[in-house]
């Protein structure tokens, strides 16, 4: 089973995303200018500052050749995980509800956050339990979630005291109505190894994604 990881100009978390994927599947590097998804079984859109965050974070990236293919892949039911800037891109592409606004205090924040799993009825959280806390790093300046989203589409919330960016209803991660596209601001790919991640909780999401991609 093969999971693609997209790289745009300005992406910086693609290497960690490929390392995280390698723990559950074969990682495949995908390039923004190439519409060929190389037959992957799932796609990770990683974090960074695609196209310099010009205009709005994710606004330019959504029109790249690879995203036309990712949108078609997602609409056909393929699993897609957007992390941080990837989340912003999937929102701009209309694959996920809502938008990400500047953090309420306008600062770039880098810290470990606790996330509370809201539902296990998505591929990505199928390896978790409802109410379970995941300790995962977050690092962003534009991560304040805003949008109209059905309660069952809220997958992760910041645990009490951890909503540093002002997100509406403590929302940290959402899925589309079909449940095959997920986005979150914190970085599960940075928390897949106890040596460097502070926890390996992020691995759960990749394991869940791989489990469904196989099916």
């Amino acid at each position, binding site marked *: 089973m093969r999971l693609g990881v997209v790289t745009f100009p300005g992406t910086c978390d693609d290497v960690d995303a490929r390392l995280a994927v390698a723990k559950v599947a074969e990682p495949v590097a995908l390039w923004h200018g190439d519409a060929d998804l190389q037959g992957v079984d799932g796609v990770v859109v990683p974090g960074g500052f695609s196209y310099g965050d010009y205009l709005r974070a994710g*606004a330019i990236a959504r029109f790249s050749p690879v995203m036309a293919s990712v949108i078609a892949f997602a609409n056909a039911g393929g699993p897609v995980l957007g992390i941080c800037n990837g989340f912003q891109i999937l929102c*701009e592409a209309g694959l996920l509800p809502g*938008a990400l*606004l*500047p953090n*309420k205090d*306008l600062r770039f924040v880098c810290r470990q956050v606790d996330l509370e799993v809201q539902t296990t009825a998505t591929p990505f959280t199928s390896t978790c339990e409802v109410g379970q806390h995941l300790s995962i790093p977050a690092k962003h300046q534009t991560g304040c979630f*805003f949008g109209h989203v059905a309660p069952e589409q809220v997958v992760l919330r910041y645990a009490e005291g951890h909503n540093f960016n002002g997100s509406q209803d403590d929302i940290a991660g959402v899925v589309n109505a079909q449940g095959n596209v997920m986005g979150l601001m914190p970085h599960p790919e940075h928390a897949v190894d106890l040596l460097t991640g502070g926890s390996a909780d992020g691995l759960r999401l990749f394991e869940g994604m791989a489990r469904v991609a196989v099916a």
Partner: protein
Amino acid sequence: MRARVLIRPKAGILDPQGVAVERALPALGFGGVANVHVGRLVELDVEDEGQLDDMCRKLLANPLIEDYEIQTVSA
């Protein structure tokens, strides 16, 4: 045709930049300032001004969180 697109945060949307500016002005002695909002200005030359609205909805603004206003400028 020279055009100017003003993009602002929608009413009711968290605008921390506006809040920061609103708080900074009194600190410099400017009183009586309220309802500050910070947006973006995009200036462009276009051959077909009929496309401007589509450009705004698809790229220049995110209609979910931003309002836009198109002004055409005579050269």
